[in-house]
């Protein structure tokens, strides 16, 4: 099978090796070959954002990214997010509190986009959130509850940061 490409990368913190055809997309590698079922595909054309994963922290459309491109990179799916004792991140908890999902099919991609957004913009304004979310289609919620969930997570992080600074000053 000389046309396969050997590949070594980190998936959710664990080193994985795979042999992939040049045409194999990352979504297929993750879902079909490695059993990462939290990566789901909808449009399969890079339009809807359902299959979003983080590659080196950047939201990436896995249905349109050739798998070999993640060689030696760090890939994180929603199951690889490291949460608190309950297994949830602050973003996921905010999504739960705001009922920021309905059918849940777009939710892993939404959570990952929101996670990356907050990593880059710890206190995003509403326009920034809307701009980032434009990469992910949700047909159920009307988006406003998702925006509110991201704002809730952001404001909690700000509070915690303020508390830490205040404690350090004491």
């Amino acid at each position, binding site marked *: 099978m000389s046309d396969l490409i050997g590949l070594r990368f980190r998936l959710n913190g664990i080193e994985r090796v795979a042999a992939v055809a040049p045409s194999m997309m990352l979504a297929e590698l993750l879902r079909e070959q490695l059993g990462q079922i939290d990566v789901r595909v909808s449009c399969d054309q890079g339009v*809807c954002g359902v299959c979003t994963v983080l590659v080196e922290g950047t939201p990436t459309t896995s249905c349109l990214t050739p798998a070999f491109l993640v060689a030696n990179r760090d890939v994180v799916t*929603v199951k690889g997010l490291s949460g608190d004792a309950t297994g949830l991140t602050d973003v996921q908890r905010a999504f739960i*509190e705001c*009922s920021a999902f*309905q059918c849940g099919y777009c939710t892993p991609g939404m959570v990952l986009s929101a996670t990356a957004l907050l990593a880059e913009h710890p206190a995003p304004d509403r326009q920034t959130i809307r701009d980032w979310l*434009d990469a992910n289609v949700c*047909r159920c919620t*009307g988006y406003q509850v998702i*925006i509110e969930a991201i704002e809730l997570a952001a404001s909690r992080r700000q509070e915690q940061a303020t508390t830490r600074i205040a404690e350090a000053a004491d």
Partner: protein
Amino acid sequence: MPDSPRQNRELSDRARQDARDKVSGEGPFTGDIVLPGMLEARLLRSPHAHARIVDIDTSKAEAMDGVRLVATGRDLGPLKRTTYGNWVHDQPVICTDRVRFEGDVVAAVVAVDEVTAFRAMERIHVSYQLLPPVMDIGAALHEDAPAIFDQKHPNVPMKLGRDTRTANEPAKNVLFSYDFEDGDIDAVEAEAAHVFTDRFHFSRIGHFYMEPWICIARQLTDRIELWSCNQDPFVLRQDLSEMFGLPEGYFRVQTAYIGGGFGGKSYCKHEPLAVLLAMLANAPVRLLMTLDESMLTLSQHDGDLVLTTSVDANGRLLSRRTEIDLNGGAYADASAQVGARAAYRSSGPYRWQAYHAHSRVIRTTTIPAGSYRGMGGTQASFASESQIDMIARRIGMDPIDFRRQNLIPAGEPFKVGDSLVDTDFSEGLDRVEADLRHVAGSPDGPVVRGKGYALGLKDGGSFGRLGKATVKITTDGRVLVLCGAIEIGQGATTVITGLVADVLNVPREWVRYAAIDTDVTPFDQGTHASCATTLTGNAVWLAARKLRGEIIDMAAGELGCDATTLDLREWKIIGAGQPLDLEPFVRKKFGRFGFELSADGFVQYPKEPDAPFGAKHLYWMPHWVGVSLSVDRETGEIRIHDLVTGVDAGHTLHGGGVRGQDEGGTIVALAQTLFEEITYDEEDVLAVPTPLDYRVARASDLPEQYRSFILEQGMGPGPMGAKGVGEAGMLGVAAAVANAVEDATGVRLTSLPFTPEKVLAALDAAEE
């Protein structure tokens, strides 16, 4: 959700029952199910709107490595009935002699993997003889139009109630007609001060659920197992039974989470084909569509609506005549229901001395139309609430006051024989009027501002239906609810488990929603018509209260005390000295393996021939909308500055769920109002064949400001006065925007969507 300590009560109360499964990507959705030896099926579809199939050569595809079989219309042998559809069975499992829309199924390939299936499809050669396409209602009704079907089909006549007539396939290219005649309309019109006739065109959008359509079928020795993204597992089981001539119990249908549907995953779709392929291959077969293909499976109905409405000199509504033609596409699906409901609902929430409604569903060679969130109520509300506003302006009345003085008050029947209106319509009007933030702009300059309101309406929960449920409690006090409400995103499992937790007084985490499996789930007529809270909810509520009573009675009997002095809390009996832990109690009574106490609930709403639909509608579902917008008279762009919407939940069982239903529907409706549309080009080819071409709402499409509110008027038929809200969001938006545009520009838009081109054309026409 796992049984977690009560470390965060607030979160667990607000959390949806399916929260962890969804924010962690757990699912499962149907696509996560993998069976050993599962083969992949893919469909070859017609590239033509209308053509005769002259020949299909599958030999090259069949000869390929990895191809298990290629099925065509020649392979329908195992089927006793080869067509399906609601009321009229006209859609072939695979086309035999003719294709009737671009996307019609011509062949199915079953292969070891998806790539092989796609490659095999390229090697199937189909010769077509083109037939003239029939792309819209006008073309279909033209006297020279080709007949899309040459003969009538097996069908089920729709029997409704008083003063109503229906017909299946009454004329060439007419699938269905409905007539309702209430009152002496000629006499009423003769006395009226004004009679206004207005025409409206409603556009068509796709469901665009994010989980593409999927079904898995497996042949066992003496039965078929099926997993489908279908919200009606029992209805589907019956269809399969009839089509294959096998007992219902031959089919075991299971349902995972469904990734959105909005009507598009109701009733039988391509499941019979998946079953046929599994039978032919004698192996598990997965039929998985792309999102493009899912868009070809079903759509909403576009249509033409003509309303003739009379009023007296004091602005009192007197009568209305409604004439509706809906584009049903190539096949029946659920079009007949949509046609009947669109006509009945076009009277809106108003009192009439006479109301006549006539509707037809017209066949065209386009995507089949069927159930779509709003189910005819969306079309009806757009036309009705537009015309109400137009009439108010014509007779010099404030549009809100005009509505107020004509509303049906709560407690009065919607029409004679129908259920009582269980909503105070005026309270919501007061609320949108008070909440809307509108800044009147200058009438000069290119950008002008306006505000508008609408009161969309649909009946909810359908009519003459039933609900069934079982609640079980294990020896350790954990609860399992069995009922057929499908979790499609609407939050049914949250509402239902929450009800049970409250009745049995246990933490919500203790209540689990049983998997859906027609072998064990209590019978259900389908998760339709925003009925899960009211219909299934009542059955569940009944079962839970019965179970609670049985537990307390059992304890009272053992303790020798009066049951009315006892209470139940977290699987303990309260009120007889020390709280009595029920686990040891149950083991003592039933033995060391414990027991499962259980109770059933059943509700059925009767048929009533004196009701216009042959039974009373379960409840009434309003949608109040206020919008402040500006129109750029040079670019034609409409900008929404402020949007207020509201629903009546009766009694809120999950606030996040209610809000999500309103806002989610509202934003889809706003996209339909402004830009989203399924269209065909001049060559009669689908102009929006992929998600890249087909524009749906994204976060940037939200209005500048949007607030939704929930009224709890407590008059619904569900538990504690609750009612459904699932389709409300679709109803009022388009009319409110049209009304605001007239307020801003003086020009009336009557044809959706209100694209910049249409706005400019309307402004130009008004100037001439």
